[in-house]
């Protein structure tokens, strides 16, 4: 099981928690990007911040097998 | 960190036309010959001008002799600052490559004397830039 907790407007659009059965190990950010595309969210991962649930940075090249849950929010406020 | 002690200085007289300014190692090294206290010498391996802090008196004869007015002074340093190529591995090149700008790279020193053409004060370089792009 791999869960994503969204914050802010992302939660309003996508729900605050989404969980998935993952059969293969996928790169976390690639998984996230694909999910956003499939839900019609045209955001690039550059604009997002994905962290561990407690706010610590994701380990480099983290996969959906290494970690069970992430927290996702909009990073760049401005522009 | 000490920005003004950096041996490379970036000037920008026109928006978007940065001018990196540093020692280009003239084949005839006028600064070295102009130094009355023999504080300047040439590194045999890199061709860079080395400054002996104990001999430099900050008389600034080297600046006068330099066609690019390159040697710098800054508060807290009792000698002139000239790019010594960080003994072959310049920190500025490292940083510039690390962030992916790749605007600076180390090259083998050309053997011809044409490189002296590049030793110019920044305002002259800016003027050329200005004529080409901004006028």
């Amino acid at each position, binding site marked *: 099981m791999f869960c994503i907790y969204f914050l802010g407007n992302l939660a309003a659009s996508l729900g605050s928690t989404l969980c998935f059965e993952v059969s293969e190990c996928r790169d976390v950010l690639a998984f996230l990007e694909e999910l956003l595309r499939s839900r019609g969210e045209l955001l690039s991962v550059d604009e997002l911040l994905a962290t561990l649930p407690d706010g610590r940075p994701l380990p480099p090249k983290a996969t959906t097998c290494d970690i069970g849950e992430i927290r996702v929010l909009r990073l760049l406020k401005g522009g | 960190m000490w920005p003004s002690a950096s041996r490379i200085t970036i*000037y920008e007289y026109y928006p978007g036309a940065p001018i990196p300014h540093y020692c280009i190692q003239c084949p005839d090294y006028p600064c070295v010959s102009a130094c009355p206290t023999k504080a300047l010498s040439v590194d045999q391996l890199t061709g860079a001008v080395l400054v002996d802090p104990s001999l430099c008196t900050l008389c600034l004869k080297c600046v006068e002799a330099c066609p690019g007015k390159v040697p710098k002074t800054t508060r807290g340093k009792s000698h002139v600052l000239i790019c010594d190529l960080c003994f072959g591995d310049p920190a500025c090149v490292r940083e510039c490559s690390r962030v992916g700008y790749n605007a600076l790279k180390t090259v083998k020193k050309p053997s011809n004397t044409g490189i002296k053409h590049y030793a110019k004060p920044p305002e002259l370089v800016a003027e050329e830039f200005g004529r080409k792009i901004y006028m």
Partner: protein
Amino acid sequence: MQIYGSWGKLLSVDLSAGKTSEERIHPITYRMFVGGRGLATYILWRELGKKWGSVDPLGPENMLTILTGPLTGYYPGIKLVVSGKSPQSGGVVGSAISSHVAYSIKTAGYDGIIVRGASRDPVYIYVRDDLVEIRDASKLWGLKGLELTKSLRSELGRDAPSLYIGPAGENLVRTAAVMARWFHAAGYGGYGAVMGSKKLKAIVVEGSGPLPPVARRDEFLKLRYEVIDKVAARSTFRVWGTTSGLWRVGHDTSSEPIRNWVEEWHNREEFSHVAIEKKYWIKNPWADWGCPLACMKVSKAVVDGVTYYTDGPDYEMGAYLGSNLGLFEVDKVIALSALADDLGLCGIQTGNTMGFAVELYERGLITREDVGYELKWGDFYCLKRLMEDIAYRRGFGGVLAEGTYRAAVEVAKRRNLPSEEVLKYAVQVKGIGVGAHGIRSRKDYPQPIAYAASVQGGDHTSVAGLPADSEESEISSAFLDSAVVCSFTSVEEETVLKFLNAVTGWGVTKEELYRTIGLRILSLQRILLLLGGPDVRWDPRVHDDNPLRFYEPLPSGPYTNSVVSRDEVLNSIAEYYKQLGWDSYGIPTEETLRKLGLYDAVDVVKTLRRELGVS
């Protein structure tokens, strides 16, 4: 007490007395307020808090603060924060600007510059390490940005980092910005007018020493490269800068102001970063000192034989001086953006006021008789003329030079209308025009309460949001503006905090940031905003709200009919205030103030409650 990351010392300039001195800031004050926006709020509170309501932002009693933070120069990206009592909101706005002055202040041996009083004649402040001079600027007064930069260079004999104002600031235009490096603006707050009121044309700072020492050097260096690598990998920003917003916000998320926010969606491919790059960019990437991101691009356009240069146009300029004015011809948007830079106008605030004016004209609330010429959407010539009239306060430009809120009140007065009848077209919150990120589609970053509950009103770089103890909260922006970290080079808060602790030797935790430090800064800003004055006073029951336009359903685009409801907004604001430890009016409770160590605010807040009739 040893201090790291800062010198513990500000340069203080009294322009009335023509004197300069040094001012100590205690290490504990830094620990409590960090620097930048936080320190500015503290200093303003300490010095002007007791008489805040009567302080005229454009009078000599106001202060102009130019502050760095402990991370300035260390953390990649180079910003400082301009502040004072805002001539727009009457509160404190932390107005961040990317400028080489930020590191040169620190290498000159100071953490910031505080300007008090006002000069009789035009002056500029020149700092070279220990040498501080108040110099005659009579020959510089009146100059626009490009000319001023050249004149300063020939006067000094070299390039030197500077902050300056254009004619707009000199003419006390409330939408005037403090400018740097041709195209950079500290726009929110209107501090260009504060500089103008002090007859201060520029602040030039050359520092030649090192940055102050850091507490844990090895950890700092490691973190610095960690951040550099993360930020350098933001390829969308590197390649396109914020200009990509003209398509991504204007088309994809449908949250860009179009014709004074009547719409928030467009489908014009010629008005996109891809089209702009091809035709107009002459330099990409372009960056300020030590920045690994390089979101800036220099563009060039020729209109009627005149050549214009500007940055981008970056998203905000493109949106506010383009689509918001119904102008989609990129060369002309570049021209307006360049003109705003040169005149020293905040493109966001001025574009907001101009769009408002065109809508009033269209509705017949102002006429040719008022303005002197016709105002039309997308008509470059009338828009250019209007912008110049604002900067020089010519004719009706003098009314608009007061900013959208005050102009609305004035127009209503002239038309014998209740002010609500004109204010309903003013897309502003508490005197500050809303940045170019709408809330109606909910696909962009600002939450429905982003502006209504912000201590900086319509400022899109300081937005409120739930949960109050997460990066969505305004505390997060207050922290970045205090540290001072650019929001585009920021990374996970955990890492930024580690960075701060490595530089300062502090042990600030996320818990402390949200429950104490950040909340302390935000609470003081909120109190000062509600104290307001002298010409504006905000009532939480009325003004903690969105502009009426945001309650109209979107008329076009993929999110047609999308809307936010006022009930939802008011409920969310109540929840947000509760989480912050503020009462239902957004006034920090006595318990919260005591917990934050703000004992001297307790009585002030009691008076405030009484005055608002909510005690």
